């Protein structure tokens, strides 16, 4: 590799070169194929930023407007590109500002490497300026973390960081590097990590469990598949499709499993969980075999565990052994990468059809359509609905956009109604439910899939949590489309207040600024839609724009998202109104 600083470097006899720790960090990133980082400079990470300056033709640094934005951008990038996202920050507040993004990546299994600067090693523990124990703080929310205090440790630790972040069940890794370790020099040579003796990324699949699973599938009269993000993380979309088509088993997805199978695939029966579809929730408690693929039985999926699929045998295809029998006791566990498990099942699975069982889904779908979907997508009332807004985005993006969502009502509506043709097209904060996720995540999502249309759908509440990232979007000219579904409320909390707290709307009404003016202040093209007649033109203009575009859609203030499984209720007690 030719580098600008080669003149300064001395080549040693063992092919290593003498460089600074800071330069070593950059070269490690390049060795790992990371040519894009999100971050924010500061005192304790300045040596690394100085090297970023020298390497700017090889490594693109995106200056976000807040470190949380850097973390979420790195997540968005990882989710659409399938690569490891990288975020950087300085010590102290820089590092703590990353923590929300790290926690989000941990619970949603997103591969990410965070690099933080730290005060010089002789100052550690002295409460120095901008010193914080980020290793202690980040420990419960990282897959692995490590504090580097010697320059010579950098290549091996960086190699381990990337290896751990992307293998097995992916997750965030934080590497904290003291300032002296960045300044000191080392003999640099890079070896990729190929294994760690205490860490087994993927267990070997047992043949016996495959046979047991096939036996259960053969006996089943009403089998049902629920898949999650494991299918996407394991690149097992084709294997899933083959499995469903051959076996004839209807399937539904968790929120993070969305887009692994095209929306219009006949075996795709919608979403499970709190605001999922009627049929898959009800039929979870009617099926005689539940096949869970790359999902972890989150409480938003299962509702009350004491009444969850008790009548069914359960097969769990899962990579992480700690997820097996954690929330739901299973009959057969296939502990391995679900791509491998599905390949093994597909070799021997019998071709079948279940017409009566499928008809149950069709019948319940019709009930949901009449009670809910029809009114969401084709409203008779004056106010605009979130559902019709999403439907219009589907129309103009030809069901092929990457949809990035925040957290709340708009997220549930977008996940229910957005249509997808390709995988890795749904980017949302699932497990942690991080408001403020979408705008920065959309930046990363677009940079991870530059040729795709990226539409961020955000509520007026979450939008204002990371609104400063409009600055990043303008500076980098990232052509994301931003849709704020504005109901002047923290809509999901308001819905719960209406349903469960006797309409005491405590601190949920928002007196909002003029969002269009704000976007224009950031020099981003902006429009507002208040009437149904203007919706189509505005969305068409937005999708056709080659530049970033902001669209505020003023929707009905007090709409609710249905169906809904009240918190703690059974999946079969799902309410349609």
């Amino acid at each position, binding site marked *: 590799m030719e580098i600008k600083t080669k003149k300064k470097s001395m080549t040693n006899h063992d092919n290593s070169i003498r460089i600074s720790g800071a330069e070593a960090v950059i070269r490690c990133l390049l060795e790992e194929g990371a040519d894009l980082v999100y971050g924010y400079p500061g005192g304790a990470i300045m040596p690394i930023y100085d090297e970023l300056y020298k390497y700017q033709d090889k490594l693109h640094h995106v200056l976000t407007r807040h470190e949380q934005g850097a973390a979420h951008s790195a997540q968005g990038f990882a989710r659409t590109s399938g690569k490891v996202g990288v975020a950087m920050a300085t010590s102290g507040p820089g590092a703590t500002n990353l923590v929300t993004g790290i926690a989000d990546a941990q619970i949603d299994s997103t591969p990410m490497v965070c690099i933080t600067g730290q005060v010089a090693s002789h100052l550690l523990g002295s409460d120095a300026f901008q010193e914080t124990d980020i*290793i*202690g703080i980040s*420990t*419960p929310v990282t*897959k*692995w*973390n*490590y*504090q580097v205090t010697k320059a010579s440790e950098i290549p091996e630790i960086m190699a381990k960081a990337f290896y*751990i972040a992307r293998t097995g069940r992916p997750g965030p890794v934080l590497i904290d590097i003291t300032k002296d370790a960045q300044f000191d020099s080392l003999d640099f040579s890079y070896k990729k990590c*190929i*294994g*760690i*003796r*205490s*860490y087994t990324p993927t267990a070997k699949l047992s043949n016996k469990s495959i046979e047991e699973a096939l036996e259960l599938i053969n006996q089943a009269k009403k089998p049902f598949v629920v898949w999650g993000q494991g299918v996407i993380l394991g690149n097992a979309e084709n294997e899933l499709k083959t499995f469903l088509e051959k076996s004839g088993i209807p399937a539904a997805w968790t929120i993070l499993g969305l887009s692994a199978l095209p929306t219009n695939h006949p075996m795709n029966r919608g979403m499970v969980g709190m605001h999922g579809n009627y049929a898959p929730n009800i039929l979870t408690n009617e099926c005689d075999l539940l096949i869970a693929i790359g999902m972890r039985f989150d409480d938003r999926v299962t509702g009350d565990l004491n009444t969850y699929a008790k009548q069914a045998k359960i097969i769990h295809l899962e990579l*992480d*052994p*700690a997820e*097996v*029998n*954690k929330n739901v006791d299973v009959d057969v566990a296939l502990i391995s990468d679900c791509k491998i498990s599905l390949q093994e099942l597909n070799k021997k699975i019998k071709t079948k059809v279940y017409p009566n069982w499928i008809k149950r889904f069709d019948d319940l779908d019709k009930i949901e359509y009449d009670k809910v979907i029809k009114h969401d997508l084709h409203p008779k009332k004056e106010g605009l609905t979130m559902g019709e807004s999403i439907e219009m985005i589907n129309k103009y993006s030809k069901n092929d956009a990457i949809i990035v969502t925040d957290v709340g009502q708009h997220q549930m509506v977008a996940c229910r109604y957005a249509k997808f043709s390709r995988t890795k097209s749904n980017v949302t904060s699932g497990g942690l439910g991080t408001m403020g996720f979408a705008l920065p995540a959309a930046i990363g999502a677009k940079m991870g899939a530059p040729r795709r249309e990226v539409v961020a759908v955000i509520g007026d509440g979450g939008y204002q949590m990371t609104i400063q990232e409009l600055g990043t979007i303008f500076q980098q000219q990232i052509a994301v489309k931003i849709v704020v579904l504005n109901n002047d409320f923290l809509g999901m909390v308001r819905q719960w207040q209406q349903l469960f707290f006797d309409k005491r709307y405590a601190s949920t009404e928002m007196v909002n600024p003029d969002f269009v003016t704000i976007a224009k202040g950031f020099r981003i093209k902006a429009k507002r839609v208040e009437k149904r007649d203007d919706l189509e033109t505005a969305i068409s203009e937005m999708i056709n724009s080659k530049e970033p575009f902001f669209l505020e859609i003023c929707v009905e203030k007090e709409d609710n998202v249905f169906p809904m499984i009240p918190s703690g209720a059974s999946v079969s007690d799902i309410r349609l109104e």
Partner: protein
Amino acid sequence: MKNITYTISVYAENNVGLLNRISAIFLKRHINLESFSTSASEIPDVFRFVIVVNTDADRVRKIVQQIEKQVDVIKAFYHTDEETIFQENALYKVKSSSLFEERHIQNIIKSSHATIVTVSPEFFVIELTGFREETEQLRKDLTPYGLLQFVRSGRISVTKAKMGISEILNTFKNTK
């Protein structure tokens, strides 16, 4: 499910921060530890944590799954008291005068099989290794004579069953 005492044994790399990572698993689930001790193990460069908790079978299984999931943990096990050989160690510091003035104290030391570690003009220190009930009984017996200090170690234990850590490490070496 009934709460009983479980001994969790963890074989791990000796990395700064792993202690935090493991204790965080208990903290997150609001589980109090009865004791926690770390030491070298039979394998060079491999550390062993012995953690004692009072909980039920379901929770201890899930905790051990979470511990084993940590990158720096080679293997984690849990066992009931019947499945392990375990001991605790206690030190008792008593005024020297009571050793000579109270004849009864000598009988207590003798019958408890404690050993005298050190004697000085002001105080003497005795040591006892055994089960919790034994070290606890001695503490109660000595209290009336002016127990100046008392300390008890966490449980250390070995299992009756084979652990097979070297095999795991060899498998890794051979496949690499």
